[in-house]
């Protein structure tokens, strides 16, 4: 129970950067993103992805576009913006140094 609570809190803080990281490899449509994130245990369902995408879109981190080229109904693809790329770079730096510090502390306390 405690483990789950810690994991939930940590995931909440990094989720949008995980989305940016996934999109940095190329644009993806909603369900594709959701599947990637659920497989990695980062979200429980699509229900939490779209609200997050709404905020990221509002903050100019991602940009949606409709693609009608395939068969069936048009798809809505999400791509990372320049602002999003900058944010991801900044996050990667913070994560590296923070992770190293936390690891060092955990090593020391063992």
């Amino acid at each position: 129970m405690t483990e789950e609570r810690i994991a939930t809190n940590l995931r909440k803080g990094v989720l949008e950067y995980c989305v940016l990281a996934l999109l940095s490899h190329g644009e993806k449509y909603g369900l594709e993103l959701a599947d990637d994130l659920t497989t990695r245990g980062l979200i429980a369902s699509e229900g939490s992805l779209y609200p997050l995408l709404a905020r990221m879109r509002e903050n100019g981190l991602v940009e949606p576009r409709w693609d009608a080229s395939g068969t069936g109904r048009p798809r809505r693809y999400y791509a990372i913006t320049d602002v999003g790329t900058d944010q991801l770079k900044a996050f990667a730096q913070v994560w590296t140094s923070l992770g190293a510090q936390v690891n060092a502390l955990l090593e020391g306390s063992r």
Partner: protein
Amino acid sequence: MTQRTAMNANTEDSYLRVVGKRLRALTPEQRDAVLDDVRAHFAEAADAGRSPEQAAESLGDPATFTQRVRAELGHEPGRTEHMWRILQWFATGVAVFTALFVTYLLPDTRGDEFDEPGFEIVLLHLVPALIAVLPILLPARVRRITTTVAAIVLTVVSFTIFEGLYDLSFFLPTAMLAWAALIVPIIARNGRPAAGWRITAGALTALPASLGLLGGLLGSWEVTVETVLYTVAFLLFGILIALGKPWAGIVLAAAGVALLVESTLNPGMLVLAGWWAGGLLLTVGVSHALAHARPRELAQE
């Protein structure tokens, strides 16, 4: 097949309808974008061989889904209520302070023939405070109405002359705060209010000091270095407010309170002008700080 298609459209349409209805507080662009996401989700789920019911289920029930969207976009239901409550309490607090001031301090310092005020006078002066606190005490479902009525009644009271009561116009700051309690949650429901509001607030911030300086220049009183410095300081704060800095609102509100207290301690000829200016700065300051606080800051409360 036809029947199945109709059923599919049905599940999707009803989901979209509920989501659209529940996201009315968002801007049309924000709402349309979320609805597009939901439409795309149903289409992608269908391509992946999922039924519309499964697609709807994976989004969660529309109430929870829209609540999450609102929370992510800074539209927590508690956010506007928080603003309203703080402003309504400020209106009540200022009303109590005003009642004490006009009942005890004002007659004393004016050198009027001073009798110990009768209990009924004290009670009558506390009526505005009661009006200001009523919307908080009454049920939430009539809140919009009670808040509106309180603001109107307090404004009328401020401009009414009652026999045997001291200037009720001292209650105008209470009325200003009551109007703010009605207006601020509405204009800030979609996040930061439109630029026009903060520019108006900036102009109002600079108004009292500018009028003071103007009075000096027209010869009503002497222009001192202090007057000029005050005017410049308030002009600067007016600009900061117009730029949307939340902390400038807090400083301004503190200046408003200081001016109200100063008016009670040294009530001179212009006591009412100082009192109104204090009320105006307090109202603009608190409103501005609340409306421009980042959603996260409010949500943590």
